[in-house]
C-alpha cells in the first residue's frame, strides 16, 4: 500500500523535502499544504526582488510539483482548516516546514514607536506579501537606521538606496516602487554591535554596493584597526575587509545622491521620539573574548543617529504550531536528524521538521536542501521500518473536504494561472512579474481563469 506524507509549508525546505521523498525507491504520495494561496515561501517573499537569478530556483520546485505523486494545496491553514491531529491520522508522516519569519526584538525602550519596525515587515511589504502590502513606511526623513549585520540588513539597505530606474527591472511590487520613487532618504546607516570582522554579510551582497549607479557606500578603515584582531581572524575575513576598504571614506566629499554608512561596534540603547521614532541612541562597544568568539561589550560612551525609519534585523524565530513541541528560547521545533522530539527527548512518531523551523534562521536556499534531505531520509527509514499505512480513505476524505470547503483552495494548476497572470502584467511594464498582492486577487486568478481557459 502506498504511503503518504504531508508537508506543511511550501518554501525551499518543503520543496526539497518533497523532492527527496519523491525520488525515494518506493513510491510515496506527497501532499503539501500552504497557508497562502501561492507557493515558494521566502523565495517569493524573502529573496530580494532584484535577485531574480536566485528566485529562478523555483524552476526546480516546479519540476518537483509536476510529479504525479505530488499535490499542492494553497490557502490551507493548519490549525484552522485542518487540525494537526487530523494530519497525523490521515498521513504516515507529517513534515513541518513552516520557516521562521517572526523577528527578534531588540528589547529596548522606544522599540514599539511608529517608524521602528522589523526589516522583515519592510521586506514583506516591498515583496507584496498579502499581510504586509498595506503597511506605510516613513521615507520623508533623510536618514534610515538599519540595525543588524546580516544579509537582510543589506537587502533592505540596497532596496532603499537603488534608483527607481534600477528597481524598475526587478519584480518589486508597484505599491513599493511608487513609495520608493518618492523617497527623500539620502543616508542609510547599517549598524552592527560587533566589529567589521564579525559581520555576517555575504561577500556577494556586500560587493553589490560598489556597483550601484547613484550610491556611495562609506566605511572608515580605522574601524578595523580599533578591534585588535588576530592574524587568523584577519585572514578569515580578508575578502570582506577588502571590499569594505574599497568603499569611500566618510570624510570624502559626497559624490552620489545616497550614502550607505557601514558602522560597527554600536549597540542600540534606546529609540527616542515623541509620537514616532526620531533618534536612535547607541552605546559604543568594545570587543572582549578570544579570537572568533568575540563579544560586544557596551562602554559608557554614547552616540545618537537621527532617523525617521528604524529597521531592526537582528534575527528571526519560528512560531509555534498547535500540537507540535516548540522551544521558545531558540524559536525552533526541537528535533534529532529531523525527527521532532518531545520534552522527554524521544522522537514523536510521524512528526518531522525541516528548514528554518528545525535549524533556526541561518543558511541560504541550498542549505535547506541538505537539511530537508536528511529529514526525508529519517522519515523514509521510519516508514520502511513501520510499513503499516494509515487508512488511505482518511487522506482522500480530508483532501475532498479541503477542496470543497467554504474557502477556495489553490492547486498547482491554480498557481500556474496566477503565475501566468503576474508574468503578463509584468511584461506590460518591463518587469519579470507584477505580483498579485491580495488573497482575494490570487483566488480569483486561480479560479476564474479556469473557466476562461
Amino acid at each position: 500500500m502506498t504511503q503518504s506524507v504531508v508537508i506543511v509549508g511550501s518554501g525551499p525546505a518543503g520543496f526539497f523535502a518533497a523532492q527527496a521523498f519523491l525520488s525515494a525507491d518506493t513510491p510515496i504520495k506527497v501532499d503539501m499544504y500552504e497557508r497562502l494561496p501561492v507557493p515558494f515561501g521566502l523565495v517569493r517573499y524573502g529573496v530580494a526582488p532584484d535577485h531574480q537569478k536566485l528566485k529562478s530556483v523555483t524552476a526546480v520546485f516546479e519540476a518537483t510539483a509536476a510529479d504525479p505523486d505530488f499535490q499542492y494545496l494553497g490557502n490551507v491553514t493548519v490549525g484552522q482548516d485542518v487540525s494537526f491531529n487530523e494530519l497525523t491520522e490521515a498521513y504516515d508522516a507529517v513534515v513541518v516546514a513552516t520557516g521562521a519569519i517572526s523577528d527578534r526584538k531588540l528589547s529596548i525602550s522606544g522599540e514599539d514607536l511608529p517608524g521602528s519596525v522589523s526589516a522583515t515587515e519592510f521586506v514583506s511589504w516591498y515583496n507584496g506579501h498579502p499581510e504586509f502590502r498595506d503597511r506605510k513606511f516613513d521615507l520623508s526623513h533623510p536618514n534610515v537606521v538599519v540595525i543588524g549585520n546580516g544579509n537582510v540588513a543589506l537587502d533592505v539597505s540596497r532596496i532603499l538606496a537603488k534608483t527607481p530606474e534600477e528597481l524598475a527591472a526587478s519584480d518589486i511590487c508597484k505599491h513599493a516602487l511608487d513609495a520608493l520613487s518618492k523617497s527623500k532618504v539620502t543616508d542609510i546607516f547599517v549598524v552592527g554591535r560587533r566589529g567589521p570582522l564579525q559581520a555576517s554579510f555575504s561577500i556577494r551582497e556586500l560587493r553589490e554596493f560598489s556597483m550601484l549607479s547613484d550610491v556611495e557606500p562609506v566605511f572608515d578603515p580605522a574601524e578595523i584597526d580599533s578591534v585588535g584582531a588576530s592574524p587568523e581572524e584577519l585572514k578569515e575575513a580578508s575578502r570582506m575587509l577588502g571590499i569594505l576598504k574599497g568603499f569611500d571614506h566618510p570624510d570624502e566629499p559626497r559624490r552620489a545622491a545616497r550614502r550607505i554608512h557601514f558602522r560597527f561596534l554600536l549597540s542600540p540603547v534606546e529609540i527616542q521620539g515623541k509620537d514616532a521614532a526620531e533618534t536612535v541612541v547607541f552605546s559604543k562597544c568594545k570587543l572582549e573574548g578570544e579570537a572568533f568568539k568575540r563579544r560586544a561589550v557596551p562602554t559608557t560612551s554614547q552616540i545618537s543617529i537621527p532617523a525617521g525609519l528604524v529597521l531592526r534585523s537582528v534575527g528571526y524565530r519560528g512560531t509555534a504550531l498547535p500540537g507540535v513541541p516548540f522551544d521558545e528560547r531558540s524559536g525552533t521545533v526541537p528535533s534529532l536528524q529531523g525527527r521532532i522530539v518531545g520534552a522527554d527527548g524521544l522522537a514523536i512518531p510521524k512528526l518531522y521538521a525541516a528548514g528554518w523551523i528545525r535549524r533556526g534562521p541561518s543558511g541560504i536556499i541550498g542549505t535547506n536542501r541538505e537539511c530537508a534531505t536528511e529529514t526525508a531520509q529519517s522519515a523514509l527509514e521510519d516508514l520502511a521500518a513501520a510499513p503499516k499505512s494509515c487508512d488511505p480513505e482518511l487522506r482522500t476524505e480530508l483532501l475532498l473536504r479541503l477542496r470543497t470547503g467554504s474557502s477556495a483552495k489553490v492547486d498547482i494548476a491554480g498557481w500556474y494561472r496566477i503565475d501566468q497572470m503576474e508574468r503578463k502584467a509584468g511584461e506590460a511594464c518591463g518587469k519579470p512579474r507584477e505580483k498579485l498582492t491580495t488573497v482575494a486577487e490570487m483566488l480569483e486568478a486561480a479560479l476564474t481563469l479556469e473557466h476562461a481557459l
Partner: protein
Amino acid sequence: MPHIVTDNCSSCRFTDCVSVCPVNCFHGDAERLYIDPILCIDCGACIPKCPVGAIVEDIDVIGSPQIEINEAQSAILPVIMAKQSPLPGAEERRDQLIAEGVV
C-alpha cells in the same frame, strides 16, 4: 556571474558541495567536479562546504581558463547529485593545500 570549481578540486573530489546545490548544477568525472554556468543561480551555498576552497565566483578569477573548462566539461559529464567518497589521498592533499596557504 556564475560560480566555478577550480583545480583545487582535482585529486580531492570531496563532493560536500553537491548536497547543498539547489539546482543540481555539479557535474563530474573521476578526477574532479565542474559547475554548469547556465544552471548555477549564484546562491553560494557550496562555497563554505568545500574543504579545499575550490569554489569561487568567476569575477574573482577573471581570465582564468577554469571558467571555460567548467562550461565545457559540465556540458558533457553526468550530474553528481549526492555526496560521494573523496578520492584516496584527499585528506593529505587538503592538508598540503592548507600548509601551502592555498586554502
